């Protein structure tokens, strides 16, 4: 066996024997360092003849390369071992709970409003809004409810204390004043939905002193009761996410519409705590409505000889209760976290017509 073979075997043995990076480094220095055995060997090439160098050169160089490779491989293996040993001490108990993150919710009224907005936007209805504190004129008189009209008694109105100038305003009893404001400021054709907070001096399991209404208004030259029926049918199908609904019309009275119509929705309430729409033998009150009274149009600056249209309205909270099986209206406004978490909706559950209004 030549000296070179012996040297290689000794160095490789030393590499294998190195137990840590420091020992390995010592081997490297002893072999490939400035004064290392292989470095010394390589230095001897300089003193050789050309022929001899041609013969020994590749042998020495390949020896150096093999040793370098062996050092690198051993270094990698040592690093792997060290990492494995380190990781073995780094175990966590993954069954411990994740860091708690608060889970926010959207109020059912907001969710249902977004659902309704999506449906009516598809039919070209814009959302109109107005103030909660209203002029008596807009809440009543311009809606054909003059002072001392018996219909005012139906409204259980909250009054704001008289102002310094003697004016006395109301908390709106319906969102119809938004219709008044819209008609006063826009020219037909008009298609709006006016949702919002409304107020009545009334409180029990089905009434709250504050609640939400939605109203619709269409004014153009041709729209009639048949169109209203169609809109309500299409809305109910889309909103309750059923294929068929049946609605029933009853003559009624509202000072601001003529003719006036109340609508009921066919449903099945035979199973306790559950309502199925479009079937069954029960009727649920859905909305009040009618053709806008010519006098209302006139008072709002629209020519009743030329224009006509319908208005309808109902309870937004009530729609949420019906669709999502919420039994009582009062907790809507009590901000009980347990209720909010139970009936609330996830932030990213945004109702769309393409994705569906609800899960």
């Amino acid at each position: 066996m030549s000296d070179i073979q012996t040297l290689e075997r000794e160095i490789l043995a030393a590499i294998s024997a190195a137990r840590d990076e420091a020992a390995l480094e010592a081997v490297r220095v002893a072999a490939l360092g400035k004064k290392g055995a292989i470095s010394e060997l390589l230095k001897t090439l300089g003193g050789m003849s050309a022929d001899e160098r041609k013969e020994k050169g590749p042998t020495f160089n390949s020896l150096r390369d093999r040793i370098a490779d062996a050092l690198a491989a051993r270094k990698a293996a040592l690093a792997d071992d060290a990492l494995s040993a380190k990781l073995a001490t780094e175990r966590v108990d993954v069954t411990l709970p994740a860091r708690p993150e608060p889970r926010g919710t959207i109020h059912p009224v907001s969710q249902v409003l977004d659902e309704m907005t999506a449906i009516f936007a598809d039919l070209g209805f814009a959302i109109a809004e107005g103030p909660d504190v209203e002029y008596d004129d807009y809440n009543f008189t311009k809606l054909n409810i003059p002072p001392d009209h018996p219909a005012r008694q139906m409204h259980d109105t909250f009054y704001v204390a008289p102002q310094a100038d003697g004016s006395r305003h109301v908390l709106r009893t319906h969102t119809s004043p938004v219709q008044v404001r819209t008609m006063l400021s826009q020219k037909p054709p008009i298609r709006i939905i006016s949702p919002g907070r409304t107020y009545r001096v009334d409180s029990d399991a089905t009434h709250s002193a504050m609640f939400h209404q939605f109203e619709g208004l269409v004014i153009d030259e041709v729209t009639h009761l048949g169109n209203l029926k169609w809109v309500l049918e299409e809305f109910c199908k889309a909103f309750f996410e059923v294929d068929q609904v049946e609605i029933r019309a009853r003559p009624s009275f509202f000072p601001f519409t003529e003719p006036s119509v109340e609508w009921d929705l066919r449903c099945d309430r035979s199973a306790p705590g559950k309502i199925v729409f479009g079937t069954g033998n029960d009727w649920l009150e859905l909305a009040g409505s009618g053709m806008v009274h010519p006098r209302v149009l006139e008072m709002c600056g629209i020519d009743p000889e030329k224009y006509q249209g319908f208005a309808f309205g109902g309870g937004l909270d009530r729609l949420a209760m019906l669709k999502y099986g919420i039994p009582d209206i009062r907790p809507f406004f009590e901000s009980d976290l347990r209720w909010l978490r139970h009936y609330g909706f996830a932030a990213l559950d945004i109702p769309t017509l393409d994705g569906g209004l609800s899960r």
Partner: protein
Amino acid sequence: MKFTLSWLKAHLETDADAAAVAEKLTSIGLEVEGIEDKGAALKDFTVARVISAEKHPNADKLKVCLVDIGGGAPASSSEAVGQNVVQVVCGAPNAHTGMKAVFAKPGVVIPSSGEVLKIGTIRGVESRGMLCSERELLLSEEHTGIIELPADAKVGSPAADALGSGDPVIDVSITPNRGDCTSVYGIARDLAAAGLGKLHSASVSPVPGKFASPKKVHLNFDSHAKPCPLFAGRFIRGVKNGPSPKWVQDRLRAVGLRPISALVDVTNLLSLDRGRPLHVFDADKLSGDVQARMAKDGEQLLALDGKTYTLDGTMCVIADEKAARGIGGVMGGEDSGCTETTANVFVESAYFEPASIAQTGRKLAIISDARYRFERGVDPEFVVPGIELATKLILEFCGGEPSETVIAGKVPEWRRKITFTPAAVTRLAGIDVPKAEIVRILMNLGFTGDDGDPMQVVPPSWRSDVEGSADLVEEVVRIYGLSKVPSAAMLRPSVIARPTLTSAQRRARIVRRALAARGFNETINFSFLPRAQAKLFGGGDDARQIENPIAADLDALRPSVLPSLLAAAVRNAARGNADCMLFEIGAQFDSGVPGAQQTIAAGIRAGSGVRTWTKATHEPDAFDAKADMLAILESAMGTAMTAPVKAGAPPWYHPGRSGTLVLGPKPLAYFGEIHPAVLAKLDLKGPVAAFEVFLDAIPERKVKGKARSPFSPSPYPAVERDFAFVIDQRVAAEEVLKAARNTDRQLIERVDAFDLYEGKGVPEGKKSLAIAVRIQPKDKTLTDAEIDAIAEKIVAAVTKATGGVLRT
């Protein structure tokens, strides 16, 4: 408005039962609220005839009866037990041959016991049914014997009919426009027009007067105010007041009224039956003539409800020569009312203007049957017939002798022509009704007119609510059948729906969902709250008070959304949920006039977080609120909010731990910790972090077009340099950051504060603020010398602006 089916049938010839009547009523706009049918509870009980009643062979007090229960051939007394004759053992002492009784067959549930009747054997004799007492049917406590029905009761027919309790009571909700249906007759009239039956004639024949009325009537009004245009009166002498006849009492009781005396019952009966309110004075308690006049300001009257009312000059009273004796059309006076000893009466029948009655009723807060009818409009043509009918009934019930009728004023003009195009029905209601049908419906409802096109239509005297063409469309459609209106598609304004939300609505929606995504629970709270709470948040003044609050402590419009949320946190804490993140998007009221409200997104963080094994909880602070506020603004604006905040916020915030973000002239948001004194008053444990963002003040996006600006990252390496400055404690960090930023706005990309230190090594009253400055060259790589030059400029700028010294 309640009435019994038989009362209705006194005016309407129809075979319809209560259910059919109710269905028709609802379909023509007279909504039935309910049908109370006592007869339904007795539906299993029938009329039977006792063929024979013999002594029980084994018991002295029992009888064995053979009973004809009907349903077969008429039974003779000799007939044996068969299909329609059963044997019943009965203990009633009054059971006797030939009587009509109430029979219960085996299987029927006896109301008093709730038990099912079985075939039994009593002392060896089989009994196949029962003859019932009033107590057993829960009709009364009477149990001394079985019920003996009138002899003409039909064997086998429902016992309820024979008992007189088979008369269902129908309750109709009358809408305020239908004054004509505040009477049974009016309802019958509407049903007849809708084809449910034939209306019996209701013409009233005059009762001739026997003498001239010793009392005259007068209308004493200024020329312009005529709340009472017609006043009729009649003197009836020698009456004897007492109980009214049973049929009158039955009708009144059935609809929930207590019979009082014949004279009073007559007025109640006519009010209900004909919608004609009347008043009957004890004539001996009136001084001289009777007049309708305006009340004097401050005039007082003790009314029939026992209360004394103070009147004013806008109210019409009925007075004698001394004083007001009644509030016209609203309520009579106690002192001139009839009693058991009344001998002479003066009957009043008048027409009062609806608006005047409504105003008086509202001012005095009197709710009466008379007000209810007058303010909805009574039939002006029925004033005089009404007094004739009243006279007739009083003579019938109380005897006496009537005077001639005295009348002041005249029937107010009610005839008005409405121009009506039959095509309006199609135009408004979307349904084709043949013209002949339109004419027929209107005529049946009592309208008159020609049948031209357009028609000239005159509504009947009792329909003051019908004013125009649209009203006539309603009349036609409600009778023709609203359910026949077909649904008709509405045109889409554009093939693909366009966006309809305003930018403000869009912002509110995004903010709502952004807050929920941050972990906040959305709430909706009342817009009013206790005044004491309002005062803590800059409100509670008189202009923002509710005049008639639903509860004494919900009396103020909220000046801020925060107190609603804090109160909610208190309630949740009481339920064991002290940790809450609540928000609301809603109105705050800056005064009590329309439009003085702003839409606010407000939120609170209360509690120190859920306890967890990671122990990472922390108490909410101003920087939580600041982050929430910035997140809202960034989500609403779609871009980072770069406007600086200033220290300080309104007084409900902690004075040293709150800030305001101002953009332009107005604050855009407040944030910080809630003032501990405010928390203490609300009884809430702190600290609580809160924010209020004024959504209406968020500026509109100014960028036009949809294209983004070009993306041009610098190819040259960015350099980050850290500096620590020792500055006075009162110097705002923003001053340091701003000075550094402004040193070279081209090269300095961003400046961040990454450490704040006070304490050992930093002099008293000073703090050390460390900032990181990121320098991003755009057109070349910077040399060390250039970077050092910038660093020197930064240090100089910060020192100049804040007096800060670079910490070494």
